[in-house]
């Protein structure tokens, strides 16, 4: 076990940071917010933690905590500016935000290390710390999927008018999604820089958006379980596909495409469908709600208007709508 653990330590670390990064994109999606801002926050968190360790000699946990706070605040400010956008427009705005962070990192001179980035970030960060932080985050995300908050998040995502009529402040929930996404992205980035001891503009580029999106599309976008599945698959898959040599990227692409086409709700969605199928099979059939006898058509004359209404006679058979009852049903 220990041999396996140490020989795969880098992959284990990448799985944990990948999971938190995937959650930074998945959580807003669960709120109905199509945002990739978590990836930009990943970059900000990585650079912020690195700079705090290098220039302030901060302990790792303090640097990570401050980085998470900074990215959460930036997430809130970003949300205040763009939360009114929706769908692709919102997605494009957040992609632009991510790319701007990369541009700032590249052009930041000695402060950000320019195109070569920052090196030699040596901290007291340990694997138990990394596991603990990831588990705490995962636990909070799991809690957010259940109970009152979980139901409300469903409503905000699926139907904002219904959510408002159920007493939910939709705008506040959308802002919370930006804040949480920022914090999660910042945590992923700062943890990654602590274990890698380096960060550069290439580490926070467009490929990171694709990776996070791929993880949750294939794993499943509507539950933390999907993010876990996606993070494991796409961290370990490249090393498992090494045997195919130069065809690795092509095979990787085919797997993603097939999963997207055949599993529109991701691998987790398949488990959900299976669970519901089993529940349906086990369930006792419920009695249908009580049906009442159809009302007497004593108002047929009223429905036919003044020409026939006065007589009170109806030629229609009982319970059958008359061809002259034009007011019945949809007009």
């Amino acid at each position, binding site marked *: 076990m220990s041999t396996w653990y140490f020989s795969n330590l880098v992959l284990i670390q990448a799985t944990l940071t990948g999971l938190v990064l995937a959650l930074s994109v998945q959580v807003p999606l669960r709120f109905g917010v199509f945002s990739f801002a978590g990836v930009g926050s990943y970059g900000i968190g990585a650079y912020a933690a690195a700079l705090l360790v290098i220039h302030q000699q901060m302990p790792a946990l303090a640097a990570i905590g401050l980085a998470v706070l900074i990215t959460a605040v930036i997430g809130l400010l970003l949300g205040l500016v763009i939360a009114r956008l929706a769908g692709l427009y919102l997605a494009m705005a957040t992609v632009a935000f991510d790319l701007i962070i990369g541009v700032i990192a590249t052009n930041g001179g000695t402060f950000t290390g320019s195109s070569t980035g920052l090196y030699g970030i040596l901290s007291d960060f340990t694997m138990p710390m990394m596991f603990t932080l990831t588990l705490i985050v995962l636990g909070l995300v799991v809690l957010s999927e*259940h109970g*009152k908050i979980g*139901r*409300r998040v*469903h*409503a905000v995502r*699926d*139907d904002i*008018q*219904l*959510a*408002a*009529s*159920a*007493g*939910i*402040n*939709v705008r506040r929930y959308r802002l919370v999604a930006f804040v949480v996404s920022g914090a999660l992205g910042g945590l992923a980035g700062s943890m990654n820089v602590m274990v890698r001891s380096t960060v550069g503009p290439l580490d926070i580029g467009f490929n990171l958006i694709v990776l996070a999106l791929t993880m949750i599309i294939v794993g499943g976008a*509507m539950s933390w379980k999907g993010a876990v599945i996606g993070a494991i698959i796409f961290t370990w898959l490249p090393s498992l596909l090494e045997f195919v040599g130069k065809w690795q990227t092509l095979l990787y692409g085919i797997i993603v495409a097939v999963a997207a086409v055949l599993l529109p709700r991701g691998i987790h969605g398949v488990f959900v469908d299976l*669970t*519901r199928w089993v*529940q*349906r099979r086990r*369930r*006792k059939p*419920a*009695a*249908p*709600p*009580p*049906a*009442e*006898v*159809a*009302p007497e*058509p004593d*108002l047929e004359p*009223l*429905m036919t*208007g*003044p*020409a026939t*209404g006065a007589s009170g006679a109806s030629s229609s058979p009982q*319970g059958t*709508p008359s061809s002259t009852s*034009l*007011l*019945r*049903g*949809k*007009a």
Partner: protein
Amino acid sequence: MTVDQTQVGRPEESSGAAVLELRDVAVHFGGVKAVDGVTLRLEPGLIYGIIGPNGSGKTTLIGAITRLTRLTRGDLLFDGSDYTAVRPDRLVNLGVARTFQTVRLLPDLTVQQNIQLGADARTGRGAGKEAAPHGDLLSKLKGFSGLAASPPSPAVARAIERTGLEGFEAYYPTELSYGTQRRVEIARAMAMNPRLLLLDEPTAGMNQAERAEISALLRDMRSEGGLCQLLVEHDVQMMIDTCDYVFAMNTGKIIAEGEPREVVQNPLVQEAYLGRKWREHA
């Protein structure tokens, strides 16, 4: 506006306080006057109806009452207090609940969870503090993991019982008939413990037996603590069977009001539905 002001039994003539009052409410979309100067008053314990042909402004009026549609002018009063500037999500705290023209259930939540969403909204009006019964740790873990349903809170259990949904708690909306889905919507609204329940075409797409069933349910709910219901429907038979008082709308205005049978026989109402030529021919 041609409204017969002499009808017997008009709720306005009673001395009771109004739950909802609309004063000269208008909703204009550019040059289109979807709702144009509607004034009405609803009292507790009664079922009101709004009838009118397509495009007459019924659903827009419900949108205005629930603050989902912006008013061009007019005042909205609940229990005598102006709520024209209150946010839509705050209305549930006043005691306003609604159903929608199309069934709006959350597909990934069970029937019980959909209804619980309504009960969740009760915080702030006392009844919202009702908690779900405490189960043992194993049942809590099962409920948390999704392996088994958690026990419903008292408000949800009551709404399920009132709407005859016992046995459907663990079903998902897609597994239910249209009529049962409508019942779930009504149960969700009932779980909000409303004082004013707005029902936008609750029997649309239903057969006659299902319509009668919903009608009986609404009449049954009338006895609950002075609940006032406002029903929007095309189905005149349903309105006659269910409502105490009916408003007829056309082109954004109320063209008649009174007891359902009288309103249906009103020539203006028949003309609105059937057209002037039909009336002249008749």
